[in-house]
């Protein structure tokens, strides 16, 4: 059972997150098909619109997931009710309505029309990758996130201050602060790109890692019963390494955009260190689970936690390292190699950590310590289907990318972009098949919440 009633607010956030996740994957399938059947849904849903929906839904649902996770774990860590539960509920609806309206805006009117309706001219921020939201939506995001941080911050500061809560809070404050760079959009493209990365890189290779590591640490304490002191030391070291490597690691985005040459050295060296915190997370998860003091009945949550460690290291760490050194990145920059890395990194790090939190907390919010055995079996099957599918999506995109780099960039007679795209189409077909397996895994995951079965037995602590 929940220790604090207000933890239950997380449930609505998680349900919304899963719903939007499904939408994200459906649009991913559409885009995957457009890669090989170029006129699919054209001109009704052009590729760029499908892509906006795909990436923006990802960002929004992960934010829902982070917020839900914070609402669940912060009261328990702080040993008090949430500061203002009503505010958390209000912000949920504001965020959901704003998010859904924005997505509908992308789908129902041409993007230029949406810019006109939302008066983009007053403060032009639209039309940059991942930051496509109308300015008014961005302002809404700021309001929602500030209200969220206020709520969480007041709870943390007036309660027990655990390392998990403090690291999570610094991560969330960083998330809010760096998002403000999305309002800076100079005419100078180099400046625009440089500070665009202050949102994108400093989120996913900076402060989001703080959020991720603290969520993982929380679940690991809960499911293993390992001493908090041990876990907190790991947590500090992991997030310390994340910042030490990741802050100057931003430089791996400053190789070829008109910025000084010294970034090739700084970016290569520091981003080569970026896999370290992810590798530490893998070690951390396995170490702590091996040293467990109890066998938690929620086996699915343990599986997700271990999976997060492994897949984040593979996707963010290994696949990031593959193309992060400047001499290699010279050839791979902006190819399917980047797409391969992006998919596995987002899935392995952020999707999986949110699903880990959901897996651990959802049964508790539904009045059980763990889901019934059958539901857990379905959930673990969905884990394997989605994870293996994502490995194959990544491998196929990597295959496409290597060929693309060779044919278009490296060979003696470079061929044009579209000619090369035709030549690697087989990889895109296989990626699409893997995407369908992922979708099937996600549907099974959703079904697992409704599966009936024998309740798990456990010894009350």
């Amino acid at each position, binding site marked *: 059972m929940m220790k604090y009633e207000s933890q239950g607010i997380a449930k609505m956030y998680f349900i919304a997150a899963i719903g939007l996740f499904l939408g994200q994957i459906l649009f991913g399938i559409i885009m995957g098909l*457009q890669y090989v059947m*170029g*006129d699919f849904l*054209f*001109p009704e849903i*052009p*590729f*760029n619109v499908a*892509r*906006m929906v795909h990436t923006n839904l990802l960002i929004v649902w992960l934010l829902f997931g982070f917020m839900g996770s914070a609402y669940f774990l912060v009261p328990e860590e702080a040993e008090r009710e949430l500061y203002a539960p009503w505010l958390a509920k209000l912000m949920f609806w504001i965020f959901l309505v704003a998010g859904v309206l924005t997505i509908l805006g992308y789908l129902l009117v041409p*993007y*230029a029309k949406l*810019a*006109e309706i939302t008066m983009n001219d007053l403060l*032009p921020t*639209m*039309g*940059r*990758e991942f930051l*496509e939201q109308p300015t008014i939506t961005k302002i809404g995001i700021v309001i929602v996130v500030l209200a969220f941080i206020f709520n969480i911050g007041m709870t943390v500061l007036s309660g027990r201050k655990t*390392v998990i809560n403090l690291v999570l809070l610094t991560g969330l404050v960083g998330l809010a602060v760096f998002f403000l760079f999305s309002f800076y959009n100079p*005419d*100078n*493209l*180099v*400046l625009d790109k*440089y500070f665009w990365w202050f949102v994108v890189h400093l989120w996913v290779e900076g402060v989001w890692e703080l959020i991720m590591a603290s969520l993982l640490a929380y679940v690991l304490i809960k499911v293993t019963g390992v001493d908090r002191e*041990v876990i*907190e*030391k790991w947590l*500090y*070291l992991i*997030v*310390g*390494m994340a*910042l*030490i490597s990741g*802050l*100057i690691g*931003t*430089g791996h*985005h400053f*190789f*070829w955009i*008109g*910025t*000084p*040459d010294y*970034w090739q050295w*700084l970016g290569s060296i520091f981003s080569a260190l970026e896999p370290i915190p992810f590798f530490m997370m893998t070690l951390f998860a396995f170490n702590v689970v091996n040293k467990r003091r109890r066998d938690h009945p929620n086996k699915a949550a343990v599986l997700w936690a271990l999976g997060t460690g492994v897949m984040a290291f593979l996707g963010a760490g290994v696949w990031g390292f593959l193309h992060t050194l400047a001499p290699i990145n*010279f050839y791979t*920059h*902006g*190819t*399917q190699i980047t797409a391969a890395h992006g998919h596995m990194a987002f899935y392995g790090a952020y999707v999986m950590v949110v699903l880990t939190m959901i897996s651990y907390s959802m049964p508790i919010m539904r009045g059980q310590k763990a889901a019934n055995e059958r539901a857990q079996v379905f959930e673990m099957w969905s884990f394997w289907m989605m994870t293996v599918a994502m490995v194959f999506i990544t491998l196929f995109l990597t295959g496409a990318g290597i060929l693309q780099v060779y044919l278009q*960039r*490296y060979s003696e007679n470079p*061929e*044009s*972009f579209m000619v090369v795209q035709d030549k690697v189409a087989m990889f895109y077909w296989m990626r699409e098949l893997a995407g369908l397996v992922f979708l099937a895994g996600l549907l099974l995951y959703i079904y697992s919440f409704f599966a009936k079965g024998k309740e798990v037995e456990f010894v009350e602590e």
Partner: protein
Amino acid sequence: MRETFTKGMARNIYYGGGVFFFLVLIGLTVDTVKGLPATDNSENITEQVAAGKRLWEINDCIGCHSLLGEGAYFAPELGNVYTRFGESTEAIKAFIKYRPVDGVKGRRSMPQFNLTDEELEEIAQFLKYVDGIKTARNWPPNIQG
């Protein structure tokens, strides 16, 4: 590790390392921004170019194309399209202008954005300006982008 390496030390690495490298990033950012005029082709940012950048944005061109390698990978790189099209803004304008409304059967096709002649000129001037940005090692590796 338990005895010699304390939680306090781990905490100091986190806060100390985080603050230190954040300050380094700020310092490098100041240096980068100061040095940009040497490479960023900002002397050629005219009102037309600025308007072109806005058009680039409000039509979400980055949702299919990459620009200096960033964006989507569904359509060709445009950071060097001015060079690739024989340094002709006319060729760029013609390409955008004559996209078929209903696409090309079975193939990827750029949407018809119904831009005015003035807007076409703006977007072409923007792409010409981007082509003039001096990227390290003159990226992309070759004319194909």
